[in-house]
């Protein structure tokens, strides 16, 4: 199917790459269908693009890239809501805010976007941990990471989310395929 986007033009999206956020994202409850765009640029930023509103696209990034010790503790109810039995196919992203002064970019660690890629469902989950910031500045860490790995393109998908079930027995996800790469060359 063809999807119009303001940032990436018209994209051909495989219907199986569309992820349903049944509750939308906070403040965007009416947009429920998204897909992930990897523009393949040097920033390592992906985009959660709405299929229903061409203007709505959230820049997202895997938090492990700039915060290797990031741990998201999901409650059993969160896992059930995502039809997650195991975490093998779960992907976790932070939503980014990128102001005109790009060095002040920040990531929302408090409410990551979690995607079950095999069931194609996603949810923005508000974590209970009160120490996590909604606006965590991370430009410096991202720059260091990119400086270290700029020649290693494989790294962009090698980072896997680490989700731990409280008191549970689930282990961090093993490598799983990236969700979609739909941008035409």
């Amino acid at each position, binding site marked *: 199917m063809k999807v119009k986007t303001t*940032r990436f033009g018209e994209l051909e999206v495989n219907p199986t790459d569309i992820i349903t956020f049944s509750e939308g*994202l*906070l*403040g*965007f409850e009416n947009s429920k269908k998204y897909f992930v765009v990897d523009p393949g*640029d*040097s*920033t390592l*930023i992906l985009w959660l693009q709405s299929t229903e509103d061409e*203007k*709505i*696209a*959230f*820049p997202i990034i895997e938090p492990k890239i700039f915060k290797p010790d990031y741990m998201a503790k999901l*409650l*059993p*109810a969160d896992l059930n809501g995502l039809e997650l039995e195991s975490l093998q196919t779960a992907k976790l992203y932070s*939503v*980014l*805010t*990128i*102001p*005109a002064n*790009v*060095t002040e*970019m920040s990531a*929302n660690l*408090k*409410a990551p976007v979690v995607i079950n890629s095999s069931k194609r469902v996603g949810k*923005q989950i*508000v974590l*209970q941990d009160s120490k996590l910031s*909604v*606006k965590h500045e991370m430009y410096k860490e*991202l*720059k260091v990471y*990119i*400086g270290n790995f*700029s020649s290693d393109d494989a790294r962009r998908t090698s980072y896997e989310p680490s989700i731990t079930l*409280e008191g549970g027995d689930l282990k961090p996800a093993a490598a799983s395929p990236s969700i979609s790469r739909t941008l035409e060359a």
Partner: protein
Amino acid sequence: MLVLTRKLGESIAIDDNIKIVVVQIKGKQVRLGIKAPKETKIHREEVYQAIQDQNTEAVQADMADIARLGEELKKK
């Protein structure tokens, strides 16, 4: 909205498994204790507002800024 009056130390039960207790009253501040199952999500309302604001700001990301960010990140 249901409105109930409670005194210090009194509580409200919601369903069979959630209990809210008035722990302290000090001027305009009320301290509440909440007993609920582990899977119940409890947040201050402001947390949701802050996340909504962050999402709203996030979708305003401009491709020109992203391009500039890409350049900045590449600089030694």
